[in-house]
Structures are given as C-alpha cells and as structure tokens.
C-alpha cells in the first residue's frame, strides 16, 4: 500500500510491475530492492545496474550572471569549466556548512545543468531563489526523469544505443538526442562504477527504462544496493555523512575546493573553510574497517584504544564486495591517520576497527587519457 503522503516518480508503475519492494525515501515512494540487495549490488559491480533517480532535483541556471551567482555559494571553479564538462560541488551556507552536495555541468551553451538530492531539493531551490541576483534564472526541470546506468558493462550497453557515448570520459556531459528525445547525459554516477546518468523527458521515461532493460546485461537496482555501492565507493550521503554543520574540510571533500576559488576566498563560508585548511578541522570523516562483530551503523559511537568515545559512525554496513563490515564516521584529526586502531560500540559491545583509506572498493571511472 502506498503512503498517500509520498510523491511518486513517473517510473513508479514500472517498478511495481518488476515486483519491487517500495519504501519512502526523500519524500518519494521508491524501490528499495527488486531481487535482493546483495544480488543487485553484485550485479552492478559485475554487469550493469539501472537506477531510477528521478526523485533527485534537476534544474537549469541561465542568464549572463548565472555562473558568477552560482559561485557565490559553491567552492568549485565553474567559470573555468569547459563546455561539455561537469563537476561535483557543495552548496554552502554562510558558516561553511554543506546545505547539499550536487552535480553541475555545462552540457550546452545554456548555462548550468544541476542535479541535487531529493530530500534537499526544495530547500536548495528556495535558497537559490532567495539569493540569486542580477541576470540569473533558476528553472526547475520537474518535467524530467533521471535514469542512471552503472557498472562495467554500462558503456557497452549504452554505446549499442548511441555510439557517441563511447567518446565520453568521466564527468563529460552533453545535451543530445537519445532514444529519439532531448536528453542531458553525463558519464558519472554514485556507485564508484563507470556509467551514465541520463535526464529524459518524463513522458518518455518508461519507454526508455524498458528499452535499456531489454539488454540482458542490465537489471533494475533499488536504493538498498545504491546505498551499499556508494558506501563501498567512499561517497558521502547528505543528511548522514555530511550536513549543514559539516564543512568540506571535515567531510574530506577538499577536492571540491578549486585552487582559484580558495585563492579568491569569495564563496560562502570561505573564512571557516580556509582556517580549517590552514589549522586543521576539529573532526574529519574517515573510513573504518570493522574487524569483528556486528556491522557498525549510523549512530554507533567510535572510541579510542582506551575506550574513550571520540566520534560517531555516520554510515556503515557489510561490504558485499569485500565480505566484511565497513563504516565511515567522524574522529578528531589526532585519530584519523591510516592504520589507527579504534573501536566501534555496537549495542554496548566494543569491536576493534582500523582507519583505512577510502574508497573501500576501487573506483572504476572511465578517465580518458590526457590529450
């Protein structure tokens, strides 16, 4: 029975036809699994998984001042970004906290195309509407669905439909005709695997979803495996691993800070962020290998070798690829060095863990050789 307060994506009937188990997520009625989380996780790592991510927010930001206005709130250099490229970035509040993480790119010459998280999209869009000035217009694309295909066979599957997709490298993006309709496509995703995210007109989404699924290398994948895949890839989930109190330095996301923007110090929260870069933050996100006992999940305390609580797990669980339990969480920098032995406390029991490098499972993005 669908909770009537939940919104649906245009693929809702398709998920139900495939026998998906549906749950509420980010305000939407979404498939958590079809066949089973472990099987779907492994299928994505070995073949190609198809994800409905239409609950996420899509928007265009256009106008002569669009880039300059956008950059007031994100620390990436979008002015220098070439057409046909996209970047991961962070929407920051005045204290340098992460309102949301996002993807933004230049698929055409019409400004930015932006994808934000489902649970934050209303807040994000309201934030921009309240803060943008000059010639900058935000247009929410709520008439589009978003489909991701991820896994080592994703490129072969998609190239069979559209040969030009072979020429995309990781984080390349374009607006092009695909399946006979106007799409935004990027070679990106949130599983650590190679693949594409494809924004399609809502009215065409079910046809395209079913067309891609006809390939025997592709299976539909639910949010359960999406979460375990992104955890293995060491990618943070907003609202869990990062939030409006977390800075990019604490969140171990300094790669999202462009050098030119740090030098200019002209974005929201730059004061705190530059200070943390110079002096170190009070806490930092680390990866943990949990060596014994139950999985350490969000909320489990992290203790030092003496048992003193020093931090908290923000996500964790079993890694189907590695066959052991992994977690990410926050500890003081004094306890963040790789190899540091710590403990996680699960239901009152302390289990040994060790700070290890992320990603937990090697990412397999398709990077083009330098020209």
């Amino acid at each position: 029975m669908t909770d009537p307060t939940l919104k649906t994506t245009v693929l809702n009937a398709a998920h139900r036809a495939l026998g998906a188990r549906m749950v509420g997520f980010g305000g939407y009625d979404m498939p958590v699994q079809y066949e089973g989380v472990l099987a779907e996780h492994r299928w994505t790592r070995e073949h190609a998984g198809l994800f409905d991510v239409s609950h996420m927010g899509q928007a265009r930001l256009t106008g002569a001042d669009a880039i300059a206005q956008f950059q007031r709130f994100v620390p990436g250099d979008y002015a220098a970004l070439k057409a046909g490229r996209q970047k991961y970035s962070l929407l920051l509040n005045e204290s340098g906290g992460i309102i949301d993480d996002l993807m933004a790119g230049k698929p055409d010459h019409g400004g930015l195309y932006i994808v934000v998280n489902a649970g934050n999209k209303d807040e994000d869009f309201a934030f921009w509407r309240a803060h943008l000035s000059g010639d900058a217009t935000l247009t929410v694309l709520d008439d589009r669905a978003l489909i991701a295909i991820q896994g080592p066979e994703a490129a072969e599957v998609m190239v069979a439909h559209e040969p030009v997709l072979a020429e995309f490298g990781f984080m390349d993006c374009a607006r092009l005709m695909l399946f006979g309709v106007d799409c935004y496509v990027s070679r990106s995703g949130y599983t650590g695997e190679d693949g594409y995210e494809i924004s399609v007109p809502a009215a065409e989404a079910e046809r395209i979803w079913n067309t891609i699924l006809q390939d025997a290398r592709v299976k539909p994948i639910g949010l359960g495996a999406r979460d375990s895949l992104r955890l293995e890839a060491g990618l943070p989930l907003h609202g869990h691993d990062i939030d409006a109190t977390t800075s990019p330095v604490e969140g171990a996301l300094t790669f999202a800070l462009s050098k030119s923007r740090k030098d200019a110090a002209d974005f929201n929260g730059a004061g705190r962020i530059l200070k943390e870069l110079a002096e170190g933050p009070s806490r930092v996100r680390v990866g943990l290998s949990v060596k014994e006992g139950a999985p350490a999940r969000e909320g489990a305390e992290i203790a030092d070798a003496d048992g003193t609580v020093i931090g908290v797990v923000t996500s964790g669980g079993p890694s189907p690829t590695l066959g052991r339990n992994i977690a990410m969480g926050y500890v003081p920098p004094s306890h963040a060095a790789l190899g540091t032995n710590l403990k996680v406390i699960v239901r009152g029991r302390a289990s040994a863990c060790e700070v290890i490098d992320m990603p937990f499972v090697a990412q397999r993005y398709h990077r083009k050789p330098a020209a």
Partner: protein
Amino acid sequence: MHFTSDHEWVRLDGDIATVGITKHAADQLGDVVFVETPEAGKTFGKGDSFAVVESVKAASDVYAPVSGEVVEGNAALASAPETVNADPEGEGWFAKIKVSDASQIDGLMDRAGYDAFLATL
C-alpha cells in the same frame, strides 16, 4: 508451531521452546548478514529483545515470544547468517528457551491464524 504478531515462531518440546523468525520476517528483511543470538543462562521476559538480526540495510530486534532461561543460542548462525533466509523455520532457529510459564504459548497464533494475520498486513 505457534506464531507472534512480531513474526517470531515457537516450537515447544516439553518445557523447551525453540524460537526463530518466520519466513515472512526473513523475506521482509532480505539478505541476512549478521545474527546475534543469546548465550545460555540469560533470562528474558516475554516481549524482551533477546536477539538481533541484521540485513544489509538495518538491524532489527527479535523479541522473546515466551519468558524463560536460554539453554542454547544457535551459534551456527554466527558464521552462516544466510541460514535464516534459507531455512527460517528450521535450521535458522535463534535459541532454545526453558519456558517459565508454558501457558504463554496459548496466547499465540497457530499456523492458520498467523496466515490469516499476514493476509491483513
């Protein structure tokens, strides 16, 4: 065999109750990846959390369907938690409990009653 509305099952042999979670519960959990069963000697009241079962996504408490003292936890589940999915109402049992009040069983559902209960969910 008897069943609770929390999806545990109980099979009584003399005053020893073998308890586990139902096939419905195992199917709902999905892939079970970790089970924490109680040690012999622990005592639980009816309705107390006496074990934890974890799927890829979440940890769930399992509640004692009867009061009593644990005489054996199913240690085999520590190394083979997937048994709970494969055979939830057989090899996937959680614990054997020496019941303190066998009449507690009378308040539980039989198979037909449990199936009827599932149909209302």
